[in-house]
């Protein structure tokens, strides 16, 4: 499972491509930064969205994240990869935002992609008629987001990065600035809490 996750990450992030785009941006070519935005928007959107459960907040925050990255790019010396660097900015800004927002959580959820109907896990869980599956889908989305919002910010972050985004433990540890052991223990605790929150969805 771990190897599979690592394999999912690497092809999306050839470091040389990022390095070249960063170097071009630093030498005054703003079009190169556009390419970095296009590349990282879906990934960072998923990170921020699963932390906020709100599309509008995610959009605003993501705009600010890229603006901050652009302003600070001259200070980027390549000690870490651009992937890690921009994720660190996104994580810090998202945590600050969620802390400031506090409990004023208003969900504004994105539509579930229709491709979910072909997902093996989803089909397994909803091995019944289509209307039941449709009803299950809406309810599932709501319950999942509610359960995630009940987790602490730190636990929600590792769950989002590991389970939703499929990042390996080492990468999460590097981005969050914690040890791999801490990542594993946070995941364990978060999974146990989520299991309690989602008891009714565990076995369909």
């Amino acid at each position, binding site marked *: 499972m771990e190897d599979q996750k690592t394999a999912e990450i690497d092809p999306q992030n050839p470091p040389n491509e990022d390095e070249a785009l960063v170097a071009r941006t630093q030498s005054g070519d703003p079009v190169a930064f556009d390419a970095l935005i296009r590349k990282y928007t879906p990934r960072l959107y998923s990170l921020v969205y699963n932390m906020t459960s709100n599309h509008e907040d995610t959009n605003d925050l993501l705009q600010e994240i890229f603006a901050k990255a652009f302003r600070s790019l001259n200070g980027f010396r390549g000690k870490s990869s651009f992937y890690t660097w921009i994720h660190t*900015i996104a994580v810090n800004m998202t945590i600050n935002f969620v802390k400031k927002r506090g409990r004023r959580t208003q969900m504004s959820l*994105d539509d579930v992609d229709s491709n979910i109907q072909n997902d093996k896990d989803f089909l397994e869980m909803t091995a019944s008629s289509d209307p039941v599956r449709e009803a299950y889908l809406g309810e599932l989305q709501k319950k999942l987001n509610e359960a995630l919002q009940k987790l602490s910010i730190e636990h929600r972050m590792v769950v989002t990065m590991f389970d939703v985004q499929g990042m390996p433990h080492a990468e999460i540890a590097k981005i969050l600035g914690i040890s791999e052991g801490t990542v594993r223990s946070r995941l364990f605790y978060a999974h146990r809490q*989520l*299991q309690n929150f989602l008891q009714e969805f565990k076995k369909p």
Partner: protein
Amino acid sequence: MQDDFSDVQKLLRLKRYETPGEEYFDSFLNEFHQRQRAELIRTPLWQIAWDRLQTFFAEVRVPKMAYVGSFAAVTICVLAAISQVKDNPMKAGAIADTKQSAAPATERLVALSTDSPRIRIPASDHFEPASLPATGSPRYVLETRPVSFGAQNSF
């Protein structure tokens, strides 16, 4: 233990299907450019500088003990400086006075040649007005008249 959570993990993986759609990602870059232009107009320079500074320090991960260590070092230096001043308050003032008075009085010796006598040359480049002798009464020049006074009365 991980197997106990496999159902939860399967559910969480389904969250990948919650996306805003392709149109959103297409228009995101345009919105970014628009916001960037708007920001250029209204953001003061100090705020941009502050943002950059914050980002720089966010990137640098300093070990927790480093803060304590650097604080302790600064405190020790300050305490040492204070105690030194307390022990010798006159000395600190005297050093400043000596520096001021010593500068014009210094002279350097220049040897023109091996045979020539040594000549003392003042170190400063500007000339000081002749000072009155420290002892004795002031001298007055008597029997002298201004030129204009003498010219008026002589025919």
